[in-house]
Structure formats: C-alpha cells, structure tokens
C-alpha cells in the first residue's frame, strides 16, 4: 500500500520535474465556455498553434462574453490574460474603456466581415447574423419581414432573451431600433403579446423553443446548420427578413498588461489564418472572419443570406444602451 503510494508520489514528482524542465512560455487566453468546451474549437486551435509557437496555450473560461468583460473588470491590472477571444461588438466599447487592451497591430485587410473593419483594438474572428429560427414542420409560412412579425396580431409566438442579461437579447433590441428607429418602443408594445418570455440567456430560450414552447426563437442564421450537420435534421430553418439582419461579430484582442506581447501578437496574427479560421464553422457554428482557402462548409451556403447587414457601432451602443433598454422596459413591462 505505502509502496504504491510512494511510487505514485515519485512519478508525480518526476512529471512535475519534467514539466518544469520544459518551461515553455505559457500563453493564457480567456474565452467563453462553449468555445473551449467539448464541442468548441479550442482544442483544435490549441494543437495547431502549439505546433508552431513553442509555447503552452492555456484556456481560462468565463460563462459568456458578458462574464469575460466582468471578469477582466474585476481583475484589472492583475489579470493573467494575454489574449481575450470571444468579446462581441456590443461589448467592445465597454471592454475598450477598461483600458486593459493594447492595439492589435494585425493587418485586417481582406477580412470577410460584412462591414468595413477599422478598429485598432479588436480583430474579428467570426461573425453571423441574428435570425428567428423556426421548425418548418410546424410553421409553414414564417413572416418575411420583421415588420410582418411585429405587426401581425395573429403571428407566431416567439421566445426572446432579456437584453439586460444576454448578448442575442441585446442584439435583437438593437435590430428593432435599426428597423423602427424612435418607433421601436411602440413596436415592442405591439410584439409583446406574442412574446412567450424573455429568458436570461440564449440557452434557456433555445431550449424552450426546442421543447415546443414557442414557434420561433431569437438565434443565428447559422443555427440550422448545426441541426443538419450534427443531428441530420433539416426541419429547422432561419426566417429571412427583408429589412436585413442584425450583425453579430465576435472579437479578439490582446492585453496591454501581458508579459509576452510578442507571443500574444503572434496569436492574434494566427487568429486570421487558415488553421484557426477553418476550425470555426462547424464547431462554433459561425462564419469565419477570413474565408479559409478550403472554403466554408457547403452547408453554410444553404443558410439564409441577408440582403443587408444592420449594425450600430460599439460607441453608439455604449451611448444608447441604457435609453434603449429603458424604452424596451417601459414598453414591455406593463
């Protein structure tokens, strides 16, 4: 018994020794949980990056993009993060205001994001459009525009996310603003009777939809691709809206506090290369920010291709979010 314990301890010591002897530099990358989870792209990306960097890439995860910013805010200057992967456009201004990020220094020419990319703090790593997803077996004629959805009193029931707690929830709030402008609050009041509920996060809403509690759910145009590829089900579709779809762009940046700025920079460079980008579509179910030479998987070509990308700049979001949310609250909480 003790002999075995001794052996275990010995081997443990040897392993630690070996690990110390290697002493590769460690690159700490913060991301959200499903990115680094079993089905996320993190493992592939780690293998591919470590093959070239002579470093040890370690993931540290928070629940979602909001938690990432919250955690950075809490950690402040003492953060261990060298790189952060998984912020989004609507959090970008808040993240920038933390003053923890350094200019990315990456050439973003030729990124495939549907908007001009000029940001010098964050680079896009993937993107997608928000969309209502429905079950075509149950809903034969989905609305063809946001206006049709909002203004038809007998329209389908939808499940949404609370814009105060969820990224797609906030995205849809902004979408309504883009389409209705100052009339958005009135439009919310019109839509409200057909909103089953506003959940805390995307997961609850999508679960509610799959369990049949609503006819449509706020998600992404690429969500049906998951059902086709992973589940071989083609009855889930995204509804194309004629006004255009709100754009969701996911971002990466490096911290100013990092002790290895070169390594962090080389990871950011790596983000916009083939090995990273080709890992994205069928794990994160989003469009790659730079089309890999191998092309995006065929299934992505079957997805809804919006005619127009709708988006507010991060600064506009920062400035107006409070007012937009309050308007939404007043219109829907009666």
């Amino acid at each position: 018994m003790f002999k075995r314990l001794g052996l275990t301890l010995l081997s443990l010591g040897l392993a630690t020794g070996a690990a110390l002897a290697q002493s590769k530099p460690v690159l700490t990358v913060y991301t959200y949980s499903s990115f680094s989870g079993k089905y996320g792209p993190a493992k592939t990306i780690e293998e591919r990056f470590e093959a070239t960097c002579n470093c040890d890439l370690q993931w540290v995860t928070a629940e979602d993009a909001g938690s990432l910013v919250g955690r950075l805010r809490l950690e402040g200057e003492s953060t261990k993060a060298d790189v952060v992967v998984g912020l989004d456009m609507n959090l970008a201004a808040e993240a920038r205001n933390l003053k923890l990020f350094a200019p990315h220094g990456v050439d973003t020419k030729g990124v495939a994001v549907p908007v001009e990319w000029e940001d010098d703090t964050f680079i896009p790593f993937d993107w997608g459009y928000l969309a209502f997803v429905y079950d075509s077996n149950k809903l034969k004629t989905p609305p063809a525009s946001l206006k049709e959805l909002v203004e038809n009193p007998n329209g389908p029931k939808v499940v949404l996310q609370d814009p105060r707690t969820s990224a797609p929830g906030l995205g849809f709030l902004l979408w309504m603003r883009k389409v209705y402008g100052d009339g958005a609050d009135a439009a919310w009041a019109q839509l409200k009777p057909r909103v089953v509920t506003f959940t805390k996060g995307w997961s609850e809403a999508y679960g509610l939809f799959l369990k049949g509690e609503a006819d449509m759910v706020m998600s992404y145009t690429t969500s049906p691709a998951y059902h086709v590829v992973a589940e071989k089900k083609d009855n889930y579709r995204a509804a194309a809206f004629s006004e255009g779809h709100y754009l969701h762009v996911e971002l990466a940046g490096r911290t100013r506090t990092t002790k290895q700025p070169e390594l962090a920079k080389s990871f950011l460079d790596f983000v916009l290369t083939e090995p990273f980008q080709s890992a994205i579509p069928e794990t994160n179910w989003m469009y790659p920010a730079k089309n890999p030479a191998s092309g995006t998987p065929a299934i992505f070509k079957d997805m809804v291709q919006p005619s127009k990308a709708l988006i507010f700049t991060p600064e506009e979001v920062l400035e107006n979010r409070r007012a937009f949310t309050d308007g939404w609250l007043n219109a829907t909480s009666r």
Partner: protein
Amino acid sequence: MRSLSHPGSLVALAILALVVGGFATLVLAGGEKPALLAIGPYLVRVLIFSTVQAALSSLLSLVFGAALALALARRRFPGRNLVVSALGLTMVMPTIVAVFAVLAVYGRSGWLAAGLHGIGIPVEISIFGYPGILIAHVFLNAPFVARIMLDALNTVPAEQWRLAQTLGFSPAQILRHLDWPALRGEVPGLAGLVFLVCFKSFAIVLALGGGPARATLEVAIYEALKIDLDFGRAAWLAFIQTALCLALTLALNWAIARPPAAQTVRALAVRPDRTDRGLLAWDSLVLVLGLLFLAPPFLSVLAGLAHVAAVLDADFARAFATSIVIAALAALMACLMALALGGAARRFRLAARMPRLAALYDALPNTLLAVPPFALTAGLFLAIRPFVDPATAGYILLPLINGLGALPFAYRFIGPRIMIAGERYGRLSASLGLRGLDRLKIMDWPILARPLGAAFALAMALSFGDFGVVALFGGTELQTLPYLLYERLGAYRLEEASSIGLLIVLVSFVLALLSGRLSHAAD
C-alpha cells in the same frame, strides 16, 4: 475558556464583516459616482412584484408542505422512506433543470397538454406569468418544507401522545395541542427561507415570468455587474435587497415566538388519530395530489437517461470530482458555522435569558439568503485581489460563497436541535458540571449527530447543483457539473445537457437519501 464558548459570536461577526466588507469594496470600486441610487418606477414595480410572488410562493409552499408533512406523519405505506428522501431533492435541482422539468409537464407541448388533447380537449395551455412562477417555486420548495416539518412533528415526545390518547383527544385537538406547537416553531424560519429564495429567484422568474414586468431585483444587480460594469449601482441594489429582506425576516421571527421544546423524548408512539376515517380520506387526497404534482416533473428529468453514455467522459469525471470537492468544503463550512451560531443562540436564549438576541442569531443564516451572491463574490474578489492571485481566488471564493449559501439550509436542521438538546439536558448537565468538550460529547452529540449528517448531505447537494458564481470563476480547472451543463447547452447539445442534469439530480438524490435516513432515524 470563556472566550472559547463564544465561537458563535465570532462566526456571526465574521459573516457580517464578509458581507459588509464585500459591499463596501464594491461601492469603493464603483468610483466617481457613489451617489445614492434613485429608485425608478420600474424598480419599485419589480420590488412589489417580487414581494407579492415570494409571499404567494411561500404561503402555498408552507400550506402544501405542512399538509404533506402531516399526512406523512400519520400514514405508513410502502415506499414511504423513498418518498421522504425524495422530498429533500427538488430544492437542490439546478434551476434550468427545474424550468425544463416544469415545462415538460405543464408547457404548451407538455404532458398535461398532450393528455388533454388525447382525450379531446384541445386547450392551449400557457403557464407563463404567475402560474409558471408559482408552480416552479412550490415544486422546488414545498417538499423541503414538508421535510423539515416532518422532522419537527417527530420531535413531539411520546409522553404527550400517551396523554392525548388517555384524554381521548379528537384529531382536531391533536392538531391544535400536539402538532401545531411543533410546527409553529419552524414556521418563521421556513417562511423566511422560502420567501427569500423566491424573492431573489432569477433564472426561473425570467424564464417563466413572460416579460420584464415579472422580474426580481437580482436581475438588475446582475445587469449592473455584468453588463453595465457599474459596481456602485450593483452594491446599492444589493444593499436595498439585503435591507428589505432583513427587515422582513426579523419581523417574521419576532412576530412568531418559538415555543420551548418538550423535556424528554422516547420512541414515537402510535398516533391515535390514525384511525379517523375523515382524516384518512383527507391524507390520501393530500398524498395523491402531492404525488400527481411532484412526480411528473421528476420523471421528466429521466428523459436524460438516453444520452448518459455520451456525457461520461474525462471532462465529466473532472467536473464531477471538482463539484464533489467544492460541495464537501462548502458543506463542512456551512455545518461548522451552523453549529457555532446555533450554540450562540442557545446560550443567549437559555443561559443569558436574552431571547430577542437569540432570535437575531437564529435569523442571521436566513438573512444571508438575501445577499446577492454575484455582488458578494465580486466585492470579495476585489477585496482579496491585492493579496491573492486571481487564478486561485476562485478556489477560495467558490467554497466560501457556496458554504454561506448552504448555511441557511443547514441551520434549519442544526439550530433547532441544538436548542432542544439545551432545553432537555442543559440544566442536568450544568448541575453535573459538564463543560466544553465533555458537554459537547455527552449532551449535544447524541442528539446532534444525525441532523448534522443530514445537514451536511443537504448542504453538499445544494452546492453540488448550484451554478451560481461559477459563471464568473469557472474555468478549465474550476469546472463543476452545472458549468458543464451550461457549456453543452451553449453548444446546442440539449440532450447532453439534460443527461448531465439527470446525473446531477441522481447524485443529489443519493445525498438526499442519506440525509433523509439520518434525519429520520430515531434519536
């Protein structure tokens, strides 16, 4: 020696310091604008809604729980032990599992709707709003209430039963003179506990509430912390919530005084009211209704069985181990704190004759429920940041916050028993000159051992299923099972998530079974 007999006061002070310190750090970190928060009309509406739904939820849970407890106390039937164990289980379900379970039964495409359609009643069921919130809250809390009340009913001494039999008490008289005094002692604590749990219930209220009119203050705190990054606002909101809940708990504790416990105890006598026909019919009705209400959502969780094989991998094993360790640490902390606080309450009530002060100690654990865990975690994190590496902070904060979260529940088991030990044997042991460890061993341990075990198991189960602050500090190392559940949900893997949910419930069930065995064995 004297100072050693005050660990309760030290624990109470430490808890207060943690909470106050956490909030204060948060306010300071808020920076330039620590101005008093203007409470807008929306927040007022939210507060009113929270109060009403929490009051309704606790009233229903208490009435239903008491009826169940009385029926279970009066009846013996095959499988009763299993039922009693399962009672401790609903409370520890991860909220998202509970939401899906409730909808699987009462939702638009749920079993109830399917059943009604099957027999030709095509009604569109929608429980979003008050019905959904109340169903979920009663489903989660009433069984726990029944558990604790059943324990209380079992403490009625055999002498009283014999007396009741000799005097030929009617069932109504038994209820009034034997059962009610035993139940009444639990009412303030339980009512406060359930009220607070419901008052800050968050994901459930949003998912089943149907709109932002039905939200709780916790949503606003979460928003301030995670979206606005406005720590000052978060701290003020947290303060408002805590103050409000504190006032309510204290009012409740002072309004309903705790009766002194009986002097002796022996094996439970046969209840004379078992033979009453009317009562038998009533109990059967209660038990059947209870089964109809509680069993289906439980059974719906079993749907996760289909994909269990897919989730049993290295990730799962690691998350399982992490969850167990954190839960055990949290439970240990909760039990030690409960012991210390219970001891202090007893000292003040019995030795020092200061029942009001004792009531304060009794109320302290419940008050913790009012403290928003996110705000507290954020505050404490900021407080220890200068001294502790952020990567290790999670290891300290997670068990601590979970332990504080489980304390109110552990205290429900431990606090009353400590008091009973003192009331029954305190004078005797004092006259024998028992002190310190000897007193603990001879006077307290025999009566405390089992509730302590029960409290430990329940606290562990609670922490095990809690997603809570892992959201902020989870990571590659600190992955718990609820964290894994959300990770799979985020990757569209609803089936795997439901399997993980099922496994969490199963582990909790084993713990609850253990807890039930322990707390129901005779003293």
